[in-house]
């Protein structure tokens, strides 16, 4: 079984003097009855698929509905002007998040992490950092286990889907997973990984899933950006020594409580929020008249 709490992972790390990554991968090979090498190969495949998806981005493509496409390219062109508020690294992260979200909407091959709708968050920060910093692929793979371990705990304690818990349970979770991975990559402590995860998830608590015309396009693609940038800021806060007053497991429980009490109109039904704005209704009517 995957771990039911982040506290348990920290306990094992300290008891056995192991890293977060080691605890998670050992659990995986035990649970799945596979070898260390098999598990690592599979995670490497995931990483390579993320890189492929980023490399194969086509800025000229539009989604079937025509609502999204091309913004990743715009952001890359803006990055070249070297005049962004966010600075070159964060601007690159934004571009990567858009690219992946758009590729997903355009039926390209991506890696759900944890879901298809939130597939841009983790690769956006990891691919950008991999290209900017002097780190090995091996370290990135390890960071993916950290991200995955965090996601497993959240899936175990709460949920990982917009239909079950709103966008907080997709982009919020992806963001929390990404921030933990980022802290790990800069040799943060396991406690810092937990603080980053807690702060990241807290910042996105209550976020609803309100897709226009029920499609994984608006506002999903751009929400991958807030997920990625939130992960960066919370990872930096944790590495600076800033702590979350509410422990991470309790934040996850709070997300669950909020998600359970969230009206179904805000849980991927396209019956609330952005999904029922006048513009959304217009779009839906346009699509209906041209499609089926």
């Amino acid at each position: 079984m995957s771990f039911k709490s982040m506290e348990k992972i920290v306990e094992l790390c300290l008891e056995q003097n192991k890293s977060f990554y080691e605890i998670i991968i050992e659990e995986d090979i035990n649970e799945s009855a596979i070898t260390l090498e098999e598990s690592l190969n599979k995670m490497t495949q995931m990483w390579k698929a993320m890189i492929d998806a980023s490399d194969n981005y086509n800025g000229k493509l539009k989604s079937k509905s025509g609502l999204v496409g091309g913004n990743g390219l715009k952001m890359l062109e803006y990055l070249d002007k070297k005049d962004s508020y966010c600075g070159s690294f964060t601007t690159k992260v934004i571009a990567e998040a858009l690219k992946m979200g758009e590729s997903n909407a355009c039926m390209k091959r991506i890696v759900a992490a944890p879901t298809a709708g939130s597939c841009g968050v983790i690769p956006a920060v990891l691919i950008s950092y991999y290209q900017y910093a002097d780190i090995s692929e091996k370290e990135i793979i390890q960071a993916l286990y950290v991200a995955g371990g965090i996601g497993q705990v959240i899936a175990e304690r709460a949920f990982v889907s917009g239909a079950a818990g709103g966008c907080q349970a997709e982009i919020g979770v992806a963001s929390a997973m990404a921030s933990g991975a980022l802290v790990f990559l800069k040799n943060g402590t396991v406690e810092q990984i937990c603080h980053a995860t807690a702060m990241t998830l807290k910042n996105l608590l209550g976020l609803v899933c309100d897709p226009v015309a029920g499609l994984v396009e608006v506002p999903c693609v751009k929400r991958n950006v807030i997920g990625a940038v939130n992960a960066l800021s919370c990872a930096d806060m944790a590495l600076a020594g800033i702590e979350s007053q509410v422990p991470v497991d309790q934040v996850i429980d709070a997300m669950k409580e909020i998600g359970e009490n969230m009206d179904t109109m805000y849980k991927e039904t396209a019956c609330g929020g952005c999904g029922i704005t006048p513009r959304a209704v217009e779009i839906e009517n346009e699509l209906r008249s041209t499609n089926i």
Partner: protein
Amino acid sequence: MNIFDIIGPIMVGPSSSHTAGAVRIGLVTRHLLAQEPVSATITLHGSFSATGFGHGTQKAIIAGLLGMLQDDMRIPQSDVIADQLGFEYNFEYKTIKDAHPNTALIHVIGKNGREIEVQASSIGGGRILINKIDGILVNFSGEQNTLIVHNIDQPGHVAEVTSTLSHKSVNIATMQLFRDARGGYAVMVIETDQDIPNESIDWLNHLEGVIKVTYLSAVK
């Protein structure tokens, strides 16, 4: 949840439930048919019907029926490929009673004339549940080896099936029994840890009182 359900799967977008899950529904249906499909009528229900077009649900189901996996880059062109192969299909958009919002009902005919009707739901994260086969409740995921035996409801059939499995050292993981009426039509759904050899399937097929045997090797 397995770590590769969190980081993964690798899939063609845009939706794990409406695209990846839909491919899997088509693929498992193909495996249940156990021969090359030549035509299909596909009914989409609920959210599959309402937002299927924008999610590529139709193309995804066709792709699965043609044997493609969820990460196959040809999924967006599966309709064109179906035309090239002469695979005929049509879609209907109707409410299916008491069904999960993401449900498809597929009636498919194979090249050797075998027909099967599968009702399946995409339950999130690309995972699916086969709800009914030929109108009979079954409820299995297809993630494990699954044996489905349709028989007349009379004493001894469960024992025959389980002893056939034990004879081949096949361990039963789960077992469900359904029937429409006492002495009527009964169904066994058995998930096993090991693959069941063809000769055992053939043997079961020839038993008196057994109407139909369907076997699905775990679809990864």
